[in-house]
């Protein structure tokens, strides 16, 4: 038999070969249901992993290369201090650029807290300077000392203080998502093994008869493998579709408050959950095969 026709027989099944194992009643639906539930959970674990991955990347990216200098100074001295700070930053090795935030941007930053109508001009709002470092990095301690010496109203904030734990937490969440996916796969394998064992035990006599008339182990195992792989595919297919629909209809996290990126798939990510049913089929295939061959070894 050629490899191709072997594959065809394996996937499509030959009708006759599937008939040698008697149809089993409602327990079929337990397998289908469990495979579906597992796939549903897998969709969420996957979404969680992807979302936290995105979050970690975003925080790491957006915050990695920037720092801020905040200057609070009396009305008259503000410009002088800003100039002094800009000069220091310009001459500090490792800093790519520094930019004084225009008033409009500062206002936009404050708006969510203070409302649109507040006369910001009249308030002693500190001036912000956005600092972008180049790849090599800079000596933060040295910079702080220089700023303290020449512009006493300037406070340097390099964000790492609160950035690192956030990025770490996001990465940890992503790892948890991945572990969940692994556990779901293992639980699916365990469930399939249990139900395959039950089916094999219920059909012990059928298996013995098949051996007596000259069936090879793979023939018998295949009859069961085909059945359980089919059930797992059906269940996981349905579960995945439902999971994806649930994610698709999740309320959108709005962009402005988009500090959290929202649990969901973006663009090509939508293709990833489609891998869940084949993965479930793969797991069911090997779990059933292992269970069947183990049972068969006890029968001559």
């Amino acid at each position, binding site marked *: 038999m050629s490899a191709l026709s072997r594959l065809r027989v394996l996937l499509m099944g030959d009708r006759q070969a599937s008939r040698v194992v008697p149809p089993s009643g409602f327990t079929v639906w337990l397998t289908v249901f469990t495979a579906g539930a597992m796939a549903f959970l897998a969709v969420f674990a996957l979404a969680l992993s992807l979302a936290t991955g995105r979050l970690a990347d975003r925080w790491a990216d957006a915050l990695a290369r920037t720092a801020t200098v905040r200057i609070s100074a009396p009305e008259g001295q503000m410009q002088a201090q800003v100039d002094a700070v800009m000069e220091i930053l310009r001459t500090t090795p490792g800093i790519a650029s520094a930019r004084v935030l225009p008033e409009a941007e500062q206002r936009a930053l404050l708006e969510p807290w203070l409302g649109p109508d507040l006369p910001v001009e009249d308030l002693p709002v500190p001036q912000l300077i956005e600092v972008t470092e180049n790849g090599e990095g800079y000596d933060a301690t040295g910079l702080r000392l220089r700023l303290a010496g020449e512009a006493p109203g300037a406070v340097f904030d390099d964000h790492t203080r609160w950035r690192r734990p956030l990025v770490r937490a996001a990465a940890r969440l992503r790892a948890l998502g991945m572990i969940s996916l692994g556990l779901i796969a293992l639980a699916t394998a365990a469930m399939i093994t249990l139900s395959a064992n039950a089916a094999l035990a219920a059909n012990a006599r059928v298996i013995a008869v098949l051996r*007596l*008339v*000259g069936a*090879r*182990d793979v023939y018998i195992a295949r009859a069961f493998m085909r059945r359980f792989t089919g059930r797992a595919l059906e269940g996981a297919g349905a579960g995945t579709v439902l999971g994806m629909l649930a994610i698709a209809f999740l309320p959108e996290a709005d962009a402005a408050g988009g500090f959290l990126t929202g649990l969901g798939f973006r663009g090509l990510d939508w293709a990833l959950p489609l891998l869940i049913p084949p993965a479930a089929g793969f797991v069911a295939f090997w779990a059933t095969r292992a269970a069947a061959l183990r049972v068969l070894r006890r029968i001559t």
Partner: protein
Amino acid sequence: MIELENVAHSYGGGELLSGVSLKLAPGSFHFLTGPSGAGKTTLLKLCYGELVPTAGHVGLFGRELREMSRDDIARTRRRIGVVHQDCQFLDHLPLDENVALPLTVSGRGGEAEAGNLRELLSWVGLTARAKALPPQLSGGERQRAALARAVIMAPDVILADEPTGNVDWEMSQRLLTLLVELNRMGKAVLIATHDLTLIRAAKAQVAARVLRIKDRRLQLAGADL
């Protein structure tokens, strides 16, 4: 084709069989007798590899049973037709599919063999019952179907365990005639039975040798039958 050499078997307790030697050659016809529980079925099981001897050698078609893989044993069973005492059918499949089961599992099922199957069913007189499920069949019908299944692969050897156990005299005669016909086609036949009248009837039709299990050993029963 099947050779037992100094074979012993025990199911854990004492030995049921010991020092058994037997050679089934093409065209030979053997009866195996002995009281119930003497080990007739055990001896047959040794012949088709369901049991492995605790001592001695079993050779199937020139190969040592102990050295054969599970797939080898499966392939060898396709060359040995066995009529089991309890028939061993799949109750969810109709009679014709049960008879064709050895073809199905060896990948030879389907249209090509459909003609053969029909012919075989009419030979054992079961054409009308082809779509019946095994539990719906009478004892005699089951025995004939079991014989049909045993020969559908055109095996070289036919082993029958009490093939006339559940049937009346007339039916057992018909089954015997079928087996004698197969033997004339060159197949080796071994029938385990304690039905002495059947053996006598067979001796009129074929040169049969009668083996008897006595005190765990296999003896050739002489002309006393």
